[in-house]
């Protein structure tokens, strides 16, 4: 700790160079933080999905419906705690381009399957008691300024009403909060949809079920699919996590792309810092020799060089990541139409810290070896 002052003054020797190096490290970690945020957004569902939830869809594709009776049969299986159905509604508000995620659900079981959805008790009761009621995420409520009790003129891009129009007025019964990042969805009653829709009656989109023992996920999935094997509508069941992962993979191999860009940036930064460190050690050869003459051991001189490099990388990383976390908040607001749950993953700081350490050590490796091997007599003669 007593050397910290020395390290600090060494950095202050060439303020401009230190400043520029620091700035490039800050930029590198800022980019790292933002790329992590993007990656989390694009593969995000995978991390937020519940471990004990399975999804059962039509085997051919998610867009194919299942018979409603399947829900009852799944509920009857041993090891299934609770099951609920969902229907994609193709929600549209006002303008055709203004699409929002609206899903028709079976009210009571829906709330049991997603216990992380928090709804005040009175709003919960109001929703369950009103066939035209809907609950909306707090972000969605904020975006359109909807309040409890409002009637919203929802339209569907898929379903026609019994009167032939595509308008499905709904009443906001409640506004939910959730820890799973899903704050932009509108949930309404399957019954409302099913009683009035022109086609697709008696069908459901897919089933979400919670099982008693999360370790049994694979076994339970096979059990559900076996139930409907060789019927006209076969199913495919997977954990919600696997489902979200497969869906994220459809975007393309985002992970690989992000890693490639991040490594390119890091390699460049490594060169920049190694170069700066090398330069500053070369310039100070004399000084290091004097320190060794005064009795500093090779170890402590080398440690000083490494320490200097670590100090600057850690400082830069900290600033960069803090800016990134602030930026990802505003980025999240700008992109909430694309990505419902955008935020910098908390692991980013830990990973970033590790990378900064690595960067600092590798960058100082060459200059540190030079400092270690430095022969006092030769160095002093070199002036």
């Amino acid at each position, binding site marked *: 700790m007593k050397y910290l002052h020395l390290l600090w003054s060494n950095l202050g020797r060439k303020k*401009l*160079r230190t400043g*520029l*190096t620091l*700035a*490039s490290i800050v*930029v*590198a970690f*800022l*980019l790292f933080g*933002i*790329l992590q945020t*993007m990656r989390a957004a694009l593969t995000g569902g995978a991390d937020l999905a519940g471990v004990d939830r399975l999804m059962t869809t*039509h*085997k*051919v*594709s*998610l*867009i*194919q419906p299942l018979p409603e009776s399947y829900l009852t049969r799944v509920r009857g299986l041993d090891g299934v705690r609770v099951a609920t159905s969902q229907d994609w509604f*193709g929600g*549209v508000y006002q303008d*055709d*381009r203004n699409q929002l995620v609206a899903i028709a659900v079976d009210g009571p079981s829906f709330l049991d399957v997603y216990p992380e959805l928090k709804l005040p008790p009175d709003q919960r009761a109001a929703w369950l008691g009103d066939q035209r009621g809907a609950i909306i995420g707090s972000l969605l409520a904020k975006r359109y300024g909807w309040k409890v009790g409002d009637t919203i003129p929802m*339209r*569907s*891009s*898929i379903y026609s009403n019994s009167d032939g129009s*595509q308008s499905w007025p709904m009443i906001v019964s409640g506004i939910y909060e959730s820890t799973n990042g899903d704050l932009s969805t509108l949930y309404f009653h399957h019954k409302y949809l099913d009683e009035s829709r022109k*086609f697709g009656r008696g069908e459901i989109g897919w089933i979400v079920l919670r099982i008693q023992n999360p370790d049994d996920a694979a076994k339970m999935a096979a059990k559900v699919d076996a139930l409907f094997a060789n019927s*006209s*509508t*076969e199913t*495919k069941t997977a954990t919600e996590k696997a489902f979200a*992962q*497969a869906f994220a*993979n*459809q*975007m*393309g*191999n985002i992970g690989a792309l992000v890693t490639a*860009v991040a490594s*390119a*940036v890091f*390699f*460049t*930064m490594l*060169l*920049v810092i190694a*170069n*700066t460190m*090398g*330069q500053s050690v070369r310039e100070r050869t004399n000084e290091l020799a004097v320190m060794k003459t005064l009795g500093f051991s090779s170890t402590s001189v080398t440690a000083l060089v490494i320490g200097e490099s670590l100090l600057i990388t850690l400082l830069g990383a900290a600033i960069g990541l803090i800016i990134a976390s602030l930026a990802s908040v505003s980025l999240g607001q700008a992109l909430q139409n*694309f990505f419902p749950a955008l935020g910098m993953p908390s692991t980013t700081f830990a990973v970033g810290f590790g990378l900064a350490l690595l960067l600092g050590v590798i960058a100082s490796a060459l200059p540190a070896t030079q400092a270690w091997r430095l022969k006092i007599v030769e160095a002093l003669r070199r002036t």
Partner: protein
Amino acid sequence: MSNSLSQVAAITAMNVRNMRERLTSSIVALVGITGVVTVLIGVLSIGEGFRAVLDQSGAPDVAIVLRGGSNDEMSSGFGQDVTRIITDAKEIARDADGPIASSELYVVVDTPLKSTGTAANVPLRGVSHQAKKLRQQFQIIEGRDFTPGTFEVIAGQGAAKQFAGLTVGNKLRWGTTQWTVVGIFKDRGSVAESELWTDATILQGAYNRGSSYQSVRAKLTSPAALQPFKDSLTADPRLNVKVFSEKEFYEEQSRTLRALVNSIGIAIAALMGLGAVFAALNTMYSAVSARTREIATLRALGFGSMPVVTSVIVEALLLALAGGLVGMLISYFSFNGMRASTMNFAAFSQITFAFTVTPALLLQGLLYALILGLVGGLLPSLRAAKLPITTGLREL
């Protein structure tokens, strides 16, 4: 003037000759700029490739009819009675086989991605017998066309490359039916190449769709016939439909994805550029500071400050030019033509495309590199020029 020009030339030549002295830091700046240019061109070539697919897909004289309120084929739907009225319209071109129009069905089937092995939404289109005439350069490149009335599919060459199991002769099971892939087709890189095609009436049966369709595509007598076609259909009280030209339709579909790719690409490149500017500044500042005495000597000998400034900037620009050129080459050879697929949320299905590095993109990358070089060289060069001769000479 000619004197100062020759001064510039003399100093620059000297700088370039002794660049070797500053090799490491010059390489650092060069690599930094190379990285920025490569990433910039790489990311923008995704957007470019995507645009190429959708641009080629839209013909001005082909109209797409969807149900009113739908913006995509997936959510659209109408019965055969409606498609009959539509295909009878007088603005539709005709040939020996009747109106050149195709009533189509659009569903997706889960097919594994070759790259990850996880299921992806691959579009399966049921088409009528005139469909091929609506795609200008439709051509079977392997195997044969499907036989109407059988469970046979043909696959676009883009889809065949991205998804597993789409080879001629392979049998696939979707639901209760077994399908055979009998051919691979191409259509000058349009969206159709991402799709699987089969007979519409067979698909209706396999998907319990009765006699309903999701869209009608029609070749009009001329691009100018679009407006009257639109007017007559929307005025017809028996219909509730929406008419697009194919061009409008695909522009609409690609809007979100293109905006996303381009804004991400530009944001990443801007940030990386900032990092590279710092690296370039560092290099040029140390280049200047290492030569303080030399510069002061030159000034004492009578060289003006202008030539000194210019020589430093030229050195930075040379580094940037080299970095930019290397970046152009790397991005061209590693990205151009690379096939990829992504989810087009507007159609809830996969679309395949090739990274396309256009000359304009290459130029854009080079220009960006030069700007970075200019910024990186300007400030250090000013410092070199401002340096008082006496202090400079005294420095070690």
